[in-house]
């Protein structure tokens, strides 16, 4: 065995990794080679020197670490974006989603219009069947809001326009578009609503505004109820204290 190879095996031997079949030949080499024996001893001494001279940490290391950790966690908490903290971004996201959905809805509406409009002047039965499957085709006929509501389902249960107050503002376009069709989603986009009267649009805006107002008032009412309960408890506490005081004063007399 050559010395270069023997020294490789010595390095492995230090880590307990020498293959068993090489042990004997290595031992034979070491028996005959003084330099490799010295090399072996030097490797072992080198390991001892490294382990014995490990540098020491400064004494306040852990204290500084905890401080830095707390600062890092505070910074992370500050940077964390909560959905209700960013209404602008929420409304942009809504706008983008609305844009995509509007484009899709427009395409569907245009395709259906090509199919259905020629038949409006024709067979009524066919029109009914078409209405059942594609509510959007009623817009051409519905001249008042009542008819539109009947045709498209219960608008009071489903939101028409996502409000900026809702942080989970990605609307359930599926449920909305199934019932209402894309045209109802934004009454301002009147070019989508051919056949609608301006009165209907105004009524729709009013409904939306009233619904939002309703939600706000409901929230305020819930809060007021909670405050009332707290005040009642405080009043009860004060009453019982007053009664105790009176009875103790009466006892003294």
């Amino acid at each position: 065995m050559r010395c270069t190879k023997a020294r490789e095996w010595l390095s492995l031997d230090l880590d307990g990794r020498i293959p068993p079949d090489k042990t004997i030949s290595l031992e034979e080499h070491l028996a005959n080679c003084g330099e490799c024996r010295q090399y072996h001893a030097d490797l072992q001494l080198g390991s001892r020197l490294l382990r014995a001279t490990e540098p020491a940490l400064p004494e306040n290391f852990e204290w500084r670490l905890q401080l830095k950790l707390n600062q890092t966690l505070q910074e992370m908490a500050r940077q964390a974006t909560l959905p209700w903290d960013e209404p602008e971004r929420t409304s942009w996201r809504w706008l983008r989603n609305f844009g995509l959905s509007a484009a899709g809805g427009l395409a569907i509406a245009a395709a259906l219009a090509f199919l259905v409009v020629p038949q409006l002047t024709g067979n009524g039965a066919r029109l009914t069947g078409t209405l059942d499957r594609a509510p959007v085709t009623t817009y051409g006929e519905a001249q008042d809001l009542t008819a539109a509501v009947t045709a498209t389902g219960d608008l009071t249960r489903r939101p028409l326009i996502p409000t900026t107050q809702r942080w989970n503002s990605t609307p359930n376009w599926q449920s909305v578009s199934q019932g209402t069709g894309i045209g109802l989603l934004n009454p301002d986009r009147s070019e989508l609503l051919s056949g609608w009267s301006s009165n209907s649009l105004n009524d729709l805006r009013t409904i939306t505004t009233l619904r939002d107002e309703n939600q706000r008032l409901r929230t305020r009412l819930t809060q007021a109820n909670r405050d009332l309960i707290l005040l009642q408890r405080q009043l009860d506490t004060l009453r019982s204290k007053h009664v105790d005081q009176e009875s103790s004063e009466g006892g003294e007399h």
Partner: protein
Amino acid sequence: MHALEEQFSVERRSVPVAWTELRDEDLIARVQQGQRRAFDEIVSRYKGRLFSFILRMVKDPTEAEDLTQETLIRVYIHANKYREIARFSTWVFTIATNLVRNRMRRRARRPRMFSLNPTPDSDELPLDPPDPDMDPSRDVEGEELGKLIALATSKIPEKYRTPFLLREVNELSYEEIQQVTGLKLGTVRSRINRARNRFRQLIKPLLKNETLLADLERLEEKMLSDKDDE
């Protein structure tokens, strides 16, 4: 029987956890559950090993302390990412190695500072042996020896130094070093061998110095007695 079992389980619940007896993997599991005390125990176990490794890599104590803190902070923040597929020590040293590597790369990109020292700094020069007449009592806790070993280690090229220190000082297995560094097993083996060879060349003058060898023995005795005290 049912009442006994219930009583036993209540008693077991009320026994405080002996943190020092838990494995590293159990500790990190508790950190994942939000137990900050478990993290304190991890810090206690790893701060020395990490600092020792990082200091010998970056050579600057302030930077080494900073990187050690950064490693431990990342362990805490990303505790949920640890899975018991590998040993916890492997995961910790992977974080440390990556941080060190990034810091060294950033350092290498800085413009070179030209030294005013006319003597070129060569990796091939062995260390100057210390004064054999030096009074050993002046050597505080083997400080002189520590500085010489640190200097020798710093002269080992970085690509050899990383697996060398992970093996020698932190006692990671070859397979763990393979995971930490991303090197092949054969490469790990050969780099450790080369680093040992280089280190031996650098400390050759020390190996015959009786004073420093006496220092070594004193340090080892102190380490053993400190361990017994714990």
